């Protein structure tokens, strides 16, 4: 490809890359090297130089954005995720995070408040007791992880669309953005059409018990039409916004829409 333009006479390309990588901040360096290594086998096949890996990554990101558009177009707001009998529930339901269970947030339910921000009429914060008083529904659905595994669970809580109505949210806004108590600050954007899907839920119970710490106490957002990482746990705030604010995994390259 445009290999020649990178060539400087008398400079070894490999050494040049090595030096350039050294000057990068740690995290960028790790990802750059991982990206380069990932293209290693492909380099053998195509003869393309490793220097093109940056451009490859840029093209892949653009295709992923295109895939967001395609998925939004495919999304049917009335299509329901299949539901299952209680006998189908996976036991034990797996704990999954980028940290061990010991490092999971320990939220004090007595002092915790859900913060509401952005394009809403009523920005008051909600205590757990106030949220528990809202009408709840139970659903048994399949949780599908981006890694490929899946598990069936039982989640009970308030449909998010009812809550958005209650707080006078501008449902013409593009996103509801959630922030969480996980270490490193987990967050994730949810497109408004999915937020208004009848099965999208502010979850307070798992298998009829108060949501345990492993599954996101005190509140999880259960979205059966999205992959697992778009189902934030330990939620501390929600913001109704037109801005794309990114997300913990989305920023690292997982497809942002990631709809089922």
């Amino acid at each position, binding site marked *: 490809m445009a290999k020649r333009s990178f060539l400087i006479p008398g400079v070894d390309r490999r050494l040049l890359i090595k030096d350039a990588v050294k000057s990068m901040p740690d995290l960028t360096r790790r990802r750059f090297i*991982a*990206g380069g*290594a*990932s*293209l*290693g*086998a*492909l380099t053998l*096949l195509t003869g393309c130089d490793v220097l093109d890996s940056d451009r490859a*990554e840029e*093209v*892949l*990101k653009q*295709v*992923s954005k295109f*895939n967001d558009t395609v*998925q939004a177009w*495919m*999304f*049917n707001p009335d*299509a*329901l*995720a*299949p539901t299952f009998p209680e006998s189908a529930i996976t036991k034990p339901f797996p704990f999954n995070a980028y940290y061990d269970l010991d490092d999971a947030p320990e939220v004090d339910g007595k002092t915790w408040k859900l913060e509401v921000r952005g394009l809403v009429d009523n920005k008051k914060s909600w205590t757990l007791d106030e949220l528990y008083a809202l009408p709840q529904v139970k659903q048994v659905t*399949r949780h*599908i*992880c*981006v*890694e*490929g*595994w*899946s598990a069936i669970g039982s989640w009970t809580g308030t449909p998010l669309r009812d809550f958005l109505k209650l707080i006078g949210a501008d449902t013409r806004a593009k996103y509801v953005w959630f922030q969480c108590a996980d270490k490193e600050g987990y967050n994730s954007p949810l497109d408004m059409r999915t937020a208004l899907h009848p099965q999208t839920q502010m979850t307070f119970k798992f298998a009829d018990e108060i949501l345990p710490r492993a599954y996101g106490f005190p509140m999880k957002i259960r979205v*059966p*039409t999205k992959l697992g990482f778009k189902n934030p746990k330990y939620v501390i705030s929600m913001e109704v916004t037109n801005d794309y604010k990114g997300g913990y*995994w989305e920023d*690292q*390259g*997982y*497809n942002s829409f990631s*709809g*089922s």
Partner: protein
Amino acid sequence: MSTLAAADGPTVQESAKTIQPAWVRTMHWINAVAMILMIMSGWQIYNASPLFDFHFDKSITLGGWLGGALLWHFAAMWLLMINGLAYLVTGFATGRFRRKLLPITPGGVISDAKAALTFKLSHDDLSKYNYVQKLLYAGIIAVGVVIVLSGLSMWKPVQLYYLVMLFGDYPTARYVHFICMALICLFLIVHVVLALLVPKSLRAMIIGR
């Protein structure tokens, strides 16, 4: 449809010259690239949550980590699907599938398989497929269709729920997807070995003659 059939007509008459028409060659190599990208990125995705008690070595996977592999997989899928769809439409419309791949008779397959295993199979006329070739080429097209359908089921298990039902449920679609990959890899090994044993067939797929 008629224009395509007409366009294919002269090449049939000149079959002594052209063994693989240009559209077959183009789509074959696009498919080869798309398949390799899909398989290598698919192995990396598999590694995130293996179905069996093994994983694929990193040196033969694409993407570096799950996120990178998913980007590759969901980009190459367009190449695979659009090219594959065009291939199916052209294959049926020009009558190439019917002409080249049918009929497949059990007797023919058995006798040609015996001949192949004893290296007595004739390769004088590359424009005519023997029964083993017919079976494998028709079979791999079917596997290609199933791997795309099972892949779509895993990508959109809610929106394409009826497709998932075809396989039973989401976890089963994963196994079907994996098995199809394994079949394609087996085909690929046999296909490449035979192409190298009969180099003029490889030449025909590159320059047509």
